[in-house]
């Protein structure tokens, strides 16, 4: 399904530790290895605090990893500096979660959308009006919106503007951090339709962060599940409901409320909440909440192993099976 020559970005052994006030270390991302392919969507799923945003922020230089490298077109982008960094920035853009706080409230939409273009000298000031209209129409908004302020628009419209700003530079990668979770369900659907249409037209690679596995499986080509800073399962988005095997991924799936579910059955729960990333237990990070926890899970941390092409899982339930065969 994924062709190595379409590889756009590769994260190798990325680790990020934050020092805390009392001298301990918080590991937000632990040895993360992920690949992003041309024109495909990578969905990153997990509960709050699992490190999914921390990882995606490396791609847009809002943070740098403590260890590891992120290869983009043969170069480690975490080491870039000066002019080279500035030039690479135009290839990777971001859409934030809350569209009401990701704009300067004093700028009109035309200036907001054209700011990245002006910054890289792609257009002249006289061309701004035409370009802003063109971009607004691309995200299905009327061109007259160019004269509005962000507060004159609804949340869904603002998120469309954020997407217009992100695609203005025609980047290769767009990172979307929970880009639909502040929106109504009906608006969410239209935004997903917009994103997938733009992806088809412009062949953009998307990194999408979400906490809802039900949402992400509807449009991601590749889904990675994170728990306490570790990638615990990577699988194709298609047929995800049948394919995913890690107990935590199954729990995330069971927690999705669906209008077509069986209402007579009580919803399945995993107990408790994720422990603090400051005291990650020895062994499998999911051990305390796992319904199938075994002795080995308390001693040894499971490694990611390949179940089938494009499907990897980190769980002792499956490591054992591999040894037998």
């Amino acid at each position, binding site marked *: 399904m994924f062709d190595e020559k379409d590889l756009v970005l590769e994260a190798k052994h990325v680790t990020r530790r934050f020092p805390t006030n009392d001298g301990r270390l918080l590991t937000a991302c632990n040895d993360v290895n992920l690949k992003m392919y041309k024109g495909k969507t990578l969905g990153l799923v997990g509960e709050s605090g699992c490190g999914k945003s921390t990882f995606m922020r490396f791609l847009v230089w809002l943070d740098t990893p403590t260890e590891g490298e992120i290869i983009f077109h043969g170069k480690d982008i975490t080491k870039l500096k000066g002019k080279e960094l500035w030039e690479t920035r135009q290839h990777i853009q971001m859409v934030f979660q809350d569209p009401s706080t990701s704009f300067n409230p004093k700028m009109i939409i035309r200036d907001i959308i054209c700011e990245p273009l002006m910054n890289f000298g792609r257009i002249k000031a006289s061309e701004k009006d035409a370009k802003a209209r063109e971009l607004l129409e691309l995200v299905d908004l009327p061109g007259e919106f160019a004269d509005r302020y962000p507060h004159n628009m609804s949340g869904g419209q603002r998120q469309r503007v954020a997407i217009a700003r992100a695609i203005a530079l025609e980047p290769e990668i767009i990172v979307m951090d929970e880009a639909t979770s502040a929106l109504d369900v009906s608006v*969410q*659907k239209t935004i997903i339709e917009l994103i997938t249409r733009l*992806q088809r037209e412009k062949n953009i690679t998307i990194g999408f962060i979400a906490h809802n596995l039900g*949402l992400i499986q509807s449009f991601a080509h590749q889904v990675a599940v994170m728990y306490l800073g570790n990638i615990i399962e990577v699988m194709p988005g*298609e047929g995800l409901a049948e394919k995913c095997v890690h107990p935590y991924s199954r729990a995330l799936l069971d927690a*999705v*409320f*669906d*209008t077509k579910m069986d209402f007579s059955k009580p919803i*399945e729960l995993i107990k408790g909440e994720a422990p603090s990333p400051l005291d990650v237990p020895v062994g499998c990070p999911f051990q305390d909440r796992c319904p199938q926890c075994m002795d080995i899970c308390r001693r040894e941390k499971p490694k990611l192993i390949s179940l089938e092409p494009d499907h990897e899982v980190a769980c002792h339930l499956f490591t054992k099976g591999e040894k037998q065969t």
Partner: protein
Amino acid sequence: MALLEIKNVDISYGKRVTVKNVSLDLNAGEICSIVGESGSGKTTVIRAVLGLIAGGGKVTAGDIIYEGRSLLKLSQAEWRDLRGHDISMIFQDSGAMMNQTRLIGNSYVEYIRTHENISKKEAWDKGVAMLQRMRLPDCDRIMNSYPFQLSGGQRQRVGIAMGMTYQPRLLLADEPTSALDVTTQAQIVRQFMDLRDEYGTSIIIVTHDLGVASYMGDKIVVMRNGEIVDQGDRDHMLNHSQNDYTNMLLDAVPSLGGRRYV
């Protein structure tokens, strides 16, 4: 007789009528979900039941009847007895409704002592017992914490514990799970269902998530632009509704193994 009857209610801010002709009946032990997009007036309706419409809004027509008496004519003293005792409300972020500079325990004790003439020690123990019933771990530590020290799910459980202290006949929940992770959301939803089964509490839940609304609600009310556009029991709404707007909302819920966009 229905526990709560909302009869042809209009709610206005100044001269602008924002909620028009809303009628709703709720029986004891029944759960009603109100769904709609933001700005459809769903929160305003349940705030009106508790007499807490924000920003100077007023009920200008119709009547709200709880156990046979009109809620619109209550005096302040009667409201104080009713609120938090017979009718409770749970907000989207229970941490934000508490005083940020006071320990949760102190807020809780004060709340209990407005409704009951007991000592601070007894009130504290009652609070701890309630938190335990919500399956919160380490309840003494939680009572000694500030709201910002707890996770979103824990805060929400504290809010539900507070709301349930006097086993109200009617619980109003305003987007109680929208700010939470899916796993925590499932736990909280389950807890709401248990409350109904154990105490026979009637619940009105306001949400924009059709999945949660249909899992919880015996009946579902769809609101749009301040009016009820469609209502009925769950089976009717999910499978047989003729209303285009209802079906559009249903279609927008991402469904497992459902439509894929790529």
